[in-house]
């Protein structure tokens, strides 16, 4: 019986890998300049059509890869956030990470617009967003830590308070910004992958791979944590350590993706939620599957964003919200089938 389960899991992953590869290749073919599928494949090994090769290798490939990694990061972060907070509707933005990142980005846009030196190929705005996300998480962690450890409800509430604080800061910055800054800020907030380069891909990919390689030893702890904190403690889980590790990866995952792609709505909330309804809440399955599904969702969304109004590109955050919200609502209306109240 165990063997058949292993074979089934193996086949599922194989089918998934093939599907993901197809979607990645397909997304390379679409865009402002349509490239036939045959030329997409040939661009990789022979330069028969220099223009098509440039479009594929220099523009679309890094963008598609970045979309996949960012989607994976957001969805995996969402999955562990929902586990940590024992709330299937929790989202990294709930603890204020996204709002903090947005405030950081706005600060850079308004005050450091003229400084254009890049850091590791990242724009200064991205660095601002990342720092904003990290500061928010540290702040929340400090405030919510008490003598009895980190309280999850205190953390959620602190997150909401910090979100308001950060949005009022962003609002103030928008108020004093000029027109060009304002446009830059609002575009950034809607999310976009148009500045994708290979340096971005490497950053996102390495964070993503590290996360998926280093987190698995905490999956049993996260599984037990769903029972409740004292139950997990009775089962020998070192709660404070697990919380610290999960929050660290949450900050790094969300901070990185926000820095690289701006605010991409719904992926962190909807993907793990939907995956959990299909395969159950065990993190061994949930986190990797969420990562793959999140990646696919963002690649598809970005492909749509590039083609719907070509040659104009829509912000990818609009598309994810547009796809995400109806799916989420339809899942919620059928929640009883999946064991939700």
């Amino acid at each position, binding site marked *: 019986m*165990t063997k058949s389960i292993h074979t089934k899991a193996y086949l599922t992953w194989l089918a998934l890998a093939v599907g993901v590869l197809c979607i990645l290749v397909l997304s390379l073919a679409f865009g402002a300049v349509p490239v036939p599928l045959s030329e997409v494949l040939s661009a990789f090994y022979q330069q028969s059509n220099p223009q098509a090769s440039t479009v594929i290798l220099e523009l679309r490939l890094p963008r598609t890869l970045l979309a996949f990694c960012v989607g994976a990061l957001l969805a995996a972060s969402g999955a562990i956030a929902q586990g940590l907070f*024992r709330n*299937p509707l929790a989202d990294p933005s709930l603890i204020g990470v996204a709002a903090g990142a947005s405030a950081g980005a706005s600060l850079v846009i308004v005050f450091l617009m003229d400084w254009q030196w890049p850091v590791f190929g990242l724009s200064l705005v991205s660095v601002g967003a990342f720092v904003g996300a990290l500061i928010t998480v540290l702040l929340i962690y400090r405030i919510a830590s008490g003598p009895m450890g980190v309280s999850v409800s205190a953390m959620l509430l602190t997150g909401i308070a910090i979100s308001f604080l950060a949005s009022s800061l962003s609002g103030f910055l928008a108020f004093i910004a000029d027109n060009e800054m304002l446009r830059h800020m609002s575009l950034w907030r809607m999310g976009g992958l148009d500045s994708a380069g290979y340096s971005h891909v490497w950053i996102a990919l390495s964070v993503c791979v590290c996360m998926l390689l280093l987190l698995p030893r905490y999956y*049993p702890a996260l*599984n*037990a944590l*769903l*029972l*409740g904190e*004292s*139950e997990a*403690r*009775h*089962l*020998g*889980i070192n709660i404070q350590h697990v919380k610290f590790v999960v929050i660290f990866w949450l900050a790094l995952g969300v901070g990185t993706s926000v820095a690289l792609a701006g605010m991409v709505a719904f992926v962190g909330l909807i993907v793990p939620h939907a995956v*959990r*309804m299909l395969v*159950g*809440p*065990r993190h061994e399955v949930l986190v990797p599957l969420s990562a793959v599904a999140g990646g696919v969702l963002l690649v598809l969304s970005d492909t749509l964003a590039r083609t719907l109004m070509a040659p104009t590109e829509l912000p990818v955050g609009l598309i994810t919200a547009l796809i995400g919200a109806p799916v989420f609502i339809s899942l919620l209306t059928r929640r*009883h089938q*999946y*064991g*939700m*109240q």
Partner: protein
Amino acid sequence: MCLLKVAALSVSKSGHALLDKLSMQVRTGEIHVIIGPNGAGKSTLINTLAGDTSHYSGAIELANKNLKDACDQRPRLLATLPQMSLLNFPYSVKDVVALGRTPHDTGLTIDARVVSEVMEAMDIIELAEAKYTQLSGGEKQRTQLARVLAQIWRKEDAPQRLLLLDEPFSALDIGHQQALIQTIERFASTGVAVLLVVHDMNIAAKLAHNIIVLSQGRVAARGKPAEVLKTDILKDVFNADLRVVSHPDTEQPFVML
């Protein structure tokens, strides 16, 4: 052999004493039942013994070690069923029960055998693939009980084991109550010490080797069921108009309202 030694245990919360200088000893194989009115400190006692708080005075020794020092081995020899479960994720019943094996690295085969044995004992085999969130209250309670039993099911994992149950009978029908009584008795006979909070005094009479009556954080009475379950004691502690008679078959005390 004395498994749990509690000496002068006091717990207070914002100046209000929840437990006041409580002492007790539980030996392997013994079943101790705690009864008492609401707010008497029963759950506080269970939670303190389970290691949920370090803010207590007095001494708690588990298997001859201070409770505060025995953190590493504790999950393998001490299992606790809390009064309420907060689980609202759609685990299958089998997955919930299997979580009880988290502290052990005994391998998949043994874990699977333990899980199926406890599920049989709790009569939830048919529910194995059902979603926990869709169960009835009693089915949830039996699932959580199975999880807690799975944690200390095997003698090989820890020779000395202590089971703490906070109102395990509260949502069970009379048939499953009887089955649980038998399971606990069988479990105790393999050398497990059991300490449980019960509200139904007839279950206490049937199950207990020793009853502790708690009232306002203090021991109001303790001893064998026949010594403790007396009309005047219970009337006084519970402030209820009740009568204790003798069970027609077993001659155990039987409490009637």
